[in-house]
């Protein structure tokens, strides 16, 4: 693959430093002209097409496959089945670390969920492989599947999310409820949801002896590389993964799933390059989803509207064969102060692909329930929902008692409410109408997401011509990493962004950590910042130690890097260019590495979260029950904003997703078969343009000296939280009907309007 040349885009207008500038996407021109190469755009010579055949049942086993019929089909080269496949170096059922999930690699004929891969047909053309897969005509021994939140005996999982405790306590919840003046006890349900990235999971594989070349969208290059290495028993340095662009990931491309492994196996089986792309409906199974939840919230408040207790219990599901538990109740850990808080989870096992991280895992599901319940409690207390939230504002993190590293939520409430015009809201529901007679409702929700940080490394260099290089195996899922991280890189080496060659998206570059948890900019950015500082220090050593330099004797701390020059901090008239320093020293380039990692001491001392406030207006037809969001304002405080344009786009996307959560998204599972009946973008509804109202995003100033080197909290996921509840609360305010099952449908309102 040719090296990416992102700088072919027009030069960017820039004033002052790079960080903080609303640069347009550096990869934008490539994308709109079709030159950006996604994984499935690669066609190595001799490539064959692999198509997965998936199970039509959710539980049982495959008793026969008509392999002969598939093989007879013109163009079919081979059919990979449990009986005919390359052996893996380790059993894929073995969990070698908590980030390894069990996958289907045709290890047996057992069927654990609908759409599970049961065979792979390899052919000269996509059409032949597809028809070959259809000709397999599997026959099954079917067992009754377990479906839904009441499928079987519930149990308390050992942990939820990634190692979170299943239960958390503060104070005595029952006593708090008993002493309350007002109480609510409400149960909310959220459906299974699927990531549905525009780009399906895809892999193009080429084996060259024991060397493996892979084009595959991934949010975690090094995690994928490590998983491939252990499954195929090859050394890390024999594997090269390219993932320059992802057409969305949302968590479903974070950890290696079964389908790309099947692609690698298929290439090994036939000894030719392979392309394997999931069909849309095949994404509803083996590549993760957001589990359904049923959440019970019991809340008490005193006569002044102060919370006395908050009890949040979440029921969820996991697969029959692995463990991931949507940490929905954890949403109640951080937002509202109460003397007694309890969060708890339980789960049942069902015949489903294992649920996984999906954009704001836990926070998204938990937030819509919590924000709905808080709204119900405010109404019970006769208080404005914003006043009620301010009354119960958490000055410190409620359960841990830790101070926040920063928390500009009050400013979010104020600025968001002012922009929205919240003060004009009628306190009673069903009081507002527009000129056309439609019911109008205003609702709000509080947004929150933890400011996480992983580990990363970067390599920086300054070249003889005075230009810079920054290398890090970072991931651009569409969020704008090619741009935002390059801005951090430019500042880190004191150069204009167009003077820095920024390399990312391949596995031979230093490990950038996973692009997840809203932590990628902070994590990769910290490594970049640190590598830049290290290379500048080396350059400064060359200059300040050389008596021919005007910087001689200035000492490392006495110089600053700016616009390709080192200058004396105490006398900015004295300085010289990088090129001059390197030329005099006779050095082709200087390079250095840097790392980014969480600061355990700061994490021990502070609670670190981004916050926001979302206000939504909906209109509801008073007779027909159709709902439409007409306006949303979101004010978010997320520390330092590296690129306001990318951040706004991320927050827009999150707010739209929140609206989608409240009103649209739901995988419909047949209760008898466990099959998903709307596994396509025609029937699995996400908002279309006509659903998306004018959105207004305010990024509230917030400086955080503790959270990480650059003060970045991340914005990838927070936009969903708060937004979903705001829309749901607006529907209640419009209609007076409280719907506790999401998405809210026409029939939920129709007979009560």
């Amino acid at each position, binding site marked *: 693959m040719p090296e990416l040349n992102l700088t072919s885009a027009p030069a960017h207008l820039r004033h002052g430093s790079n960080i903080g500038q609303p640069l347009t996407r550096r990869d934008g021109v490539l994308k709109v002209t079709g030159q950006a190469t996604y994984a499935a755009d690669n066609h190595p010579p001799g490539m064959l097409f692999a198509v997965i055949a998936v199970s039509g049942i959710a539980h049982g086993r495959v008793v026969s496959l008509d392999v002969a019929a598939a093989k007879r089909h013109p163009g079919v080269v081979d059919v990979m089945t449990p009986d005919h496949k390359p052996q893996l170096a380790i059993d894929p059922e073995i969990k070698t670390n908590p980030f390894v999930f069990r996958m289907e690699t045709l290890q047996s004929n057992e069927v654990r969920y609908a759409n599970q891969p049961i065979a792979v047909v390899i052919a000269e053309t996509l059409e032949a492989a597809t028809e070959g897969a259809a000709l397999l005509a599997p026959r099954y021994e079917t067992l009754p599947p377990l479906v839904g939140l009441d499928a079987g005996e519930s149990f308390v999982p050992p942990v939820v999310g990634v190692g979170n405790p299943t239960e958390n306590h503060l104070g005595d919840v029952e006593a708090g409820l008993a002493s309350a003046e007002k109480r609510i006890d409400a149960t909310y349900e959220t459906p299974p949801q699927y990531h549905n990235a525009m780009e399906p999971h895809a892999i193009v594989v080429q084996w060259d002896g024991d060397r493996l070349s892979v084009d595959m969208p991934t949010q975690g290059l090094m995690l994928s590389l490590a998983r491939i290495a252990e499954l195929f028993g090859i050394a890390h340095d024999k594997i090269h993964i390219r993932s320059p662009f992802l057409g969305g990931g949302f968590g479903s491309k974070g950890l290696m799933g079964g389908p790309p492994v099947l692609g690698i196996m298929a290439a090994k089986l036939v000894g030719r390059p392979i392309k394997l792309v999931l069909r849309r409906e095949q994404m509803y199974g083996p590549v993760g989803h957001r589990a359904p939840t049923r959440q019970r919230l019991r809340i008490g408040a005193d006569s002044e509207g102060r919370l006395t207790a908050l009890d949040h219990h979440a029921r969820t599901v996991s697969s029959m064969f692995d463990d991931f538990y949507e940490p929905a109740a954890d949403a109640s850990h951080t937002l509202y102060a109460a003397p007694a808080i309890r969060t708890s989870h339980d789960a049942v096992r069902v015949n489903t692909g294992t649920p996984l991280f999906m954009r704001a895992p836990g926070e998204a599901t938990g937030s819509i329930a919590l924000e709905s319940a808080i709204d119900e409690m405010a109404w019970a207390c006769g208080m404005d929902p914003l006043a009620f939230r301010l009354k119960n504002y958490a000055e410190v993190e409620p359960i841990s008692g830790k101070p926040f590293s920063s928390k500009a939520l009050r400013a979010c409430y104020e600025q968001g409410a002012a922009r929205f015009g919240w003060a004009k809201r009628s306190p009673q529901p069903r009081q507002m109408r527009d000129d056309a007679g439609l019911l109008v409702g205003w609702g709000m929700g509080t947004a929150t997401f933890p400011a996480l940080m992983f580990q990363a490394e970067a390599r920086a260099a300054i070249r003889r011509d005075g230009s810079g290089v920054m290398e890090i195996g970072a991931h651009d899922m569409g969020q704008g990493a090619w741009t935002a991280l390059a801005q951090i890189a430019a500042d880190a080496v004191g150069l204009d962004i167009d003077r820095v060659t920024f390399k990312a998206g391949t596995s031979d570059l230093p490990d950038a950590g996973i692009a997840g948890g809203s932590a990628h900019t902070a994590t990769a950015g910290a490594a970049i910042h640190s590598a830049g500082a290290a290379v500048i220090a080396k350059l400064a050593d060359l200059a300040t130690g050389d008596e021919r330099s005007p910087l001689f004797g200035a000492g490392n701390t006495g110089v600053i890097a700016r616009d390709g020059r080192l200058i004396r901090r105490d006398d900015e008239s004295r300085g010289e260019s990088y090129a001059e320093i390197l030329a005099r020293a006779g050095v082709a380039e200087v390079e250095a590495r840097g790392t980014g990692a969480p600061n355990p001491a700061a994490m021990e001392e502070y609670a670190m979260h981004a916050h926001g406030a979302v206000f939504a207006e909906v209109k509801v037809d008073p007779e*027909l029950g159709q709902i*439409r969001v007409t306006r949303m304002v979101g004010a978010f405080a997320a520390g330092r904003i590296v690129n306001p344009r990318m951040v706004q786009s991320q927050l827009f996307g999150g707010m739209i997703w929140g609206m989608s959560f409240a009103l*649209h998204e739901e995988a419909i599972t047949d209760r008898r078969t466990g099959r998903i009946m709307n596994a396509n973008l*025609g*029937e699995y509804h996400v908002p279309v343009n006509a659903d998306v109202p004018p959105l207004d995003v305010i990024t509230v100033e917030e400086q955080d000296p503790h959270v990480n080197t650059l003060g970045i909290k991340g914005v990838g996921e927070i936009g969903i939280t708060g937004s979903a509840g705001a829309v749901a609360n607006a529907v209640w305010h419009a209609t007076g009907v409280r719907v506790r099952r999401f998405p809210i449908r026409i029939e939920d309102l129709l007979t009560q309007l």
Partner: protein
Amino acid sequence: MKPFDYVRPATVSEAVVAAARPGAAYLAAGTNLLDLMKGNISRPDRLVDVTHLDGLDAIETLPDGSLRIGALVSNADLAHDPAFAKTYPAVAEALLSGASAQLRNAATVGGNLLQRTRCAYFYDTASRCNKREAGSGCDAREGESRGHAVLGWSDSCIATHPSDFCVPLVALDAVVEIEGRGGRREIALDELHRLPGNSPERESALEPGDLVVAVRLPPAARGFAAHARYLKVRDRTSYAFAVVSAAAALRIENGKVAEARIALGGVAAKPWRARAAEDVLRGVAPTADAFQEAAWRALTDAKPSGDNAFKIELARRIVVRALRLAAAGTPARLPALPASPFASTSGAIHA
């Protein structure tokens, strides 16, 4: 995909011969058929491409005042024809409320009539479906049936016909011109789609080889231009099939309804003409009470086929609203959100 023959006959009569063979299917824009083929729901042996046939893409007014629409006219071209939209506003509104701009640009008039149901069990080849495989059973019954039929269904099939276009067409007594092995014939659109009964696999009155060549609106259809609307309630603002829809067209003379036309979409295996409801309105003032009465009459025979009782009440309310909108008069311009309950909302930019 299953290999198939592809033929491009030069004339309509050659096309009829080519398509009369077992396993053949006509291909126009393919917006439905190709999806069905990719999903293995339809496995034709032979596609007969009619897209280049002459004389099927005209919109023409006939001497008697009828309008004849060629089967290959695209949904978009028809909806955006100013004379058409002015004369048959409910039909234009229905067309623009369907699918997406891209699909409307491709999809044809004939194809729209013959699109298949969107029943999830029909599309899911792991499920039993009497339409897909006669006599295999119906997994939609007792299944996830929120969107299924409330009128005219049988125990063998509860699927609905998804077309928006057909709903006002059937209300306006549209006629379908068909070229078949026996030559040219015509039938009322209302007779084209069949209710399932015991043979849901037979969806239309078409015989092998039959090609829809045109749809004709009779002269009387012009009489409703001043009071005709299409209203479609759906789960999102655009690019969604109707949960329930209705076309209402009124001829109002001296403050009374001289003639009413009402049809429902999304409720049955065919666009559902509500003649009994029309009769209620003949000769009465267009009042809320009269519309309520008509709506009740329209749904008298409705019964839920699953988790869809709400559709009956929704259908009643949609009929009332569509009549009210029609009585208020056809708007001078098509709304930005055609057929939407939010058509009048400010801030609507596009559909």
